[in-house]
């Protein structure tokens, strides 16, 4: 920086570099200053119009009465009004038709499926997993193995009234026999039910009353399935899937399902009749049906 100022009259600040580069003290252009003042005015207008200034108990409300939440609610109502208008026909059909009829109408079924994804996420996925993938000890909804039946009407009934399976406890048989039955059932699910090694289990299965509900071949009769949700034991799909297969099976046989003892399997599907509208339950029935295993 040069010590003396060769341009004393031009109003420079005295900061001079490289002989002739100097800092001037020119005022900003008028348009720039006007924009600046406009900015200040807008700040004041904004502060009066919108909630802006914090106070010990909250903040100023602003004359517009605007809040983000109110705007969100208004927008949400707008969206709902749009949907109600745009899809009035479909919604009316959902109300009037039965789940089976909805399923037959391809477009309506797709509509029902698309509009119930959020419902499934809110009310079903906690136990049954997103996409109906199931969870340990909670049934898979995407397969074709149904405890109470898998047509749209039955699924709807399940949702409306809930389900509570029932299997008596067989602790009185003793651990050895229960183990033999379990071995037999595992062999059955793998297609080896005729093996000599499991013949003891087979006769126990037949003689202890298991076949009464689950059927002689492990496939339950329709009435037993619809009435108490007797599981299909022959297809290798496990109702209670957590942990070791045989251990799990022994526990189920020993303590039963939904019985009055401490170790019993607690397996209850809650009723949704009061919690969701009938229309939404139909929607969900279609959604579950279309997850992959509907009958």
């Amino acid at each position, binding site marked *: 920086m040069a010590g003396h100022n060769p*341009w004393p009259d031009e109003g420079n600040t005295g900061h001079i570099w490289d002989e002739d580069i100097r800092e001037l003290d020119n005022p900003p252009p008028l348009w720039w200053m006007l924009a600046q003042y406009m900015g200040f005015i807008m700040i004041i207008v904004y502060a009066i119009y919108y909630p802006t200034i914090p106070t010990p108990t909250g903040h100023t409300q602003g004359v517009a009465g605007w809040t983000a939440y109110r705007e969100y609610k208004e927008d949400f109502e707008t969206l709902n009004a749009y949907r109600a208008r745009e899809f009035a026909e479909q919604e009316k059909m959902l109300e009037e038709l039965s789940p089976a009829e909805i399923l037959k109408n391809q477009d309506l079924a797709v509509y029902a499926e698309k509009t119930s994804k959020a419902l499934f996420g809110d009310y079903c996925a906690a136990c049954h*997993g997103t996409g109906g993938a*199931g969870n340990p000890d909670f049934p898979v909804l*995407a*397969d*074709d193995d149904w405890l109470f039946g898998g047509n749209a009407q039955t699924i709807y009934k399940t949702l409306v009234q809930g389900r509570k399976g029932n299997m008596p406890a067989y602790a009185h048989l003793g651990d050895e026999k229960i183990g033999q039955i379990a071995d037999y059932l595992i062999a059955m699910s793998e297609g080896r039910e005729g093996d000599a090694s499991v013949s003891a289990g087979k006769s126990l299965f037949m003689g202890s009353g298991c076949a009464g509900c689950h059927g002689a071949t492990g496939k339950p009769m329709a009435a037993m399935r619809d009435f108490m949700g007797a599981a299909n034991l022959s297809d290798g799909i496990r109702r209670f899937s957590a942990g070791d297969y045989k251990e799990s099976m022994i526990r189920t046989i020993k303590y039963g399902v939904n019985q009055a003892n401490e170790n019993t399997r607690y397996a209850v599907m809650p009723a949704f009749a009061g919690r969701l509208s009938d229309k939404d339950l139909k929607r969900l029935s279609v959604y579950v049906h*279309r997850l*992959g295993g509907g009958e």
Partner: protein
Amino acid sequence: MSDNASNNSSKTLEEIGIEILPVNTGQGKVHAKRIGGFFRNFKWWAASFWIILFVGPYMRWNGEQAILWDIPNRQFNIFGLTILPQDIWMLSLILLFFALLLAVSTAIAGRVWCGYFCFQTVWTDVFTWIEEKIEGQPHKRQKLDEQPMNMEKLQKRVLKHSAWLFISFMTAFSFIAYFVDVFELWGQLFTLTASGYVWAELLVIGILTYLAAGIMREQICLWVCPYARIQGAMVDQETIMPTYDKDRGEPRGRLKRSKKDTEDEATKQGDCIDCNLCVAVCPTGIDIRQGQQYGCITCGLCIDACDSVMDKLKKPRGLVRYASIADFAGVELPPIYKRPRVIVYSTIMAAAFAGILYGFIAMAPMTMNVLHERNPLFVQLSTGEVQNKYTIKVVNKTDKVMNVELSVEGIEGIRMTGVDGLIEVQPGNVHGLSAFVKAPKRNLSGESTPIKIKAYNVDNPEQKVIYDSMFIGPRY
């Protein structure tokens, strides 16, 4: 301040080597004289290229508008071909191609785009042509500008601005007509049912055209357009541009009529007679004799002007001519194809062109996307099969309805369920659906098995897609 500076004997910009060429900064209006000549004619031919803009929307193809950017339907129709957003990568190649075309033409011959083809130049040219027809020659226009408003001036002004506004409107309208069917658009305008966007675009594009071509004119080229400022990096010593032959022209001076002048004096005199015609015809108001400069849009009109004068003087043409700095330095120019810039630019252009060509040839009439459902990855069925779910999207890029049959192969006993018969895909549309694929567990080779999902149009079996996907099964 400059006075102050010179008083204090500080350096001026000229002294530190910065060339200041006088450029019209908008204080005075440029009223360029129009004279005929080779470049004048060439300009008209080049400008007529833009007639396409106005007639383009009326071209039909199979009863539809031939070129239509159908934004609501997310597609671009060009002569029966539908380009969907999936193929938009070609657009980047097309843009690359034209950007380099600009670069290579600039490297060879300077701002040919600016001088002959740019819409700013062309529209300004047409606007000033109208101005001259209505208001007369430049000196008359200058007088008209200066005189106070009267009936005659008002008449001329109203007529001129109406003509300008009409062209501006047609420009804006034709532009919008590439996005909305042109006949539909006329109908909407006449019945006042066009959407707010259409009116807003008409207004904005129309006003901008009017301002840019009618009012701003050369100011756009000098101060607004970035191309003027980057051309310094795009031209080199070998680029030919309209250039004044200093050696031949200087010292310039008025033509000496007296024959008493000695031979010596006559030879001292350069060929330039300082008639200023080259300045008078310049649409950007520069003096070409001051050398190559960014205000020059290389339109060649000064060449026409100077040639006409040289013809009258019976002197050879070309005092101002297309020439490069290397020419004047006496350097022999390498042929165009041997210049590095040309080679590099052309190589990239060829690559882009090949890409575009490939894109158009390989653009399948049908495409399919298959997404494997991840939750659950698979389910086991009571039949002993494993089931996978796929979201399948079939895209129809033709203008006819497609009846598509889906099938799957790759595992013994594999089958697809959940799809009822044929899928009807509307033209230029996507059809999405969920399908279940089942395969016997015993036939699976491992955790994941490659499968092929096939789609083909039953009406035209040549239109088919094979999609490689995976079938997921249990680990054991």
